[in-house]
């Protein structure tokens, strides 16, 4: 059973210089109060792994603006000119990863696989110096697994076991990141009594979740 904690208490658990997997897609399904708390505590030197950096003033965009991030592993920064500017200025080291490879690399990290073999990126800049493995005459890029010190995720419903259910397009990277963080902190819209979420509706079993953020007042 997990007692819910305040966003500030959660932010205090996260040391500067950590690798953070952060859920969300253009800010939808991101842990917004936890992000605010990280900014408020003046977090620094974080490596962030996330689909995108939303836009300035929204979601992960706030971490970009506040100078929290020094390294970023992401698939798309096209809607956040600030991230692009900081990348070009050398303030943030950005690794661009195809979206499907990114989520699958995080999954591999979470489920104990040694990497993924994907056709995506073959013959492009993404191939770079990565190993190419041939299986039955077809060529695949070997992309390495990704794990985080923390996964910071959003969910629709939680219970005090830590079980999580998600809503519509707010699923995105959250259920996968829940597998790959050494410590998993979930910010749900609602927390239900244990036994209320049907077992078939749970998409992240509570055993994966370490901390719940309490509801907004």
């Amino acid at each position: 059973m997990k007692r819910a904690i305040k966003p500030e208490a959660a932010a205090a658990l996260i040391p500067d210089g950590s690798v953070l997997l952060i859920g969300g897609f253009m800010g939808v399904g991101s842990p917004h109060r936890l992000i605010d708390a990280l900014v408020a505590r003046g977090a620094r030197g974080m490596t962030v792994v996330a689909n995108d950096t939303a836009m300035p003033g929204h979601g992960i965009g706030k971490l970009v603006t506040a100078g929290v991030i020094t390294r970023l592993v992401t698939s798309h920064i096209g809607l956040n000119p600030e991230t692009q500017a900081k990348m070009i200025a050398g303030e943030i080291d950005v690794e661009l990863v195809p979206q499907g490879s990114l989520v699958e690399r995080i999954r591999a990290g979470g489920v104990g696989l040694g990497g993924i073999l994907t056709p995506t990126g073959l013959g492009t800049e993404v191939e770079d110096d990565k190993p190419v493995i041939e299986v039955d005459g077809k060529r695949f890029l070997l992309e390495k697994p990704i794990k985080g010190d923390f996964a910071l995720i959003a969910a629709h419903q939680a219970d005090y076991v830590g079980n999580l259910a998600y809503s519509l397009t707010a699923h995105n990277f959250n259920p996968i990141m829940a597998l790959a963080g050494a410590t998993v902190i979930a910010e749900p819209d609602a927390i239900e009594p244990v036994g209320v979420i049907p077992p078939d509706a749970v998409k992240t079993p509570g055993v994966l979740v370490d901390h719940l953020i309490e509801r907004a007042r």
Partner: protein
Amino acid sequence: MDAKELIARRVAREIHPGMLVNLGIGLPSLVANFVPANAGVFFQAENGVIGLGARPPEGMEDPNLTDAGGGFVTAVPGAASIDSAMSFGLIRGGHLDMTVLGGLQVDARGRLANWKVPGKMVPGMGGAMDLVTGAKSVVVAMQHSARGEPKIVAECSLPLTSLRRVNLIVTDLAVIIPTEDGLVLTETAPGISVDEVRAQTGAPLTLAPDLREMELA
């Protein structure tokens, strides 16, 4: 009719009942407006919904239901929520019938570049590399030229999105099918001559035997 609407209306004719279709951000997203709601077509947004519907009436937006650009959408009856691993599993696994993407360049071999202008603009590939690699059919929807410069070129000078030859190019001037033997001009926009198309195209064009005027949805 402006150029974007013309392109969207022409692309819409490629979409048939029962298909699963992914529309990229921007111009491609307009295509949905010209596919009848009762056509039995399912639109996928890579951020996590199959069965994307129109923009909701004001006051009925759901913060957890957006398209890949973060804009509010609705879900049609029979819609399904999926996480990013499933979303790209469908894309990479060949379960997506068609993707419609914007382009910066397409070359004589039908190869697309659409994610990076080195030193100038680096939006990132987002889902594009997976989409071009995995979709059964790839349609590039773009303006024929940009600031007077052809976007259809002999060889892409911008970084490639994939080695895969796209299936169709639809522009405000023409419809072009890339083949093993080069680009084949199959349709011209209303009022546009073959010479005008050739003048704005940076790669050789073969004329299709049944070259005709573009029909629009």
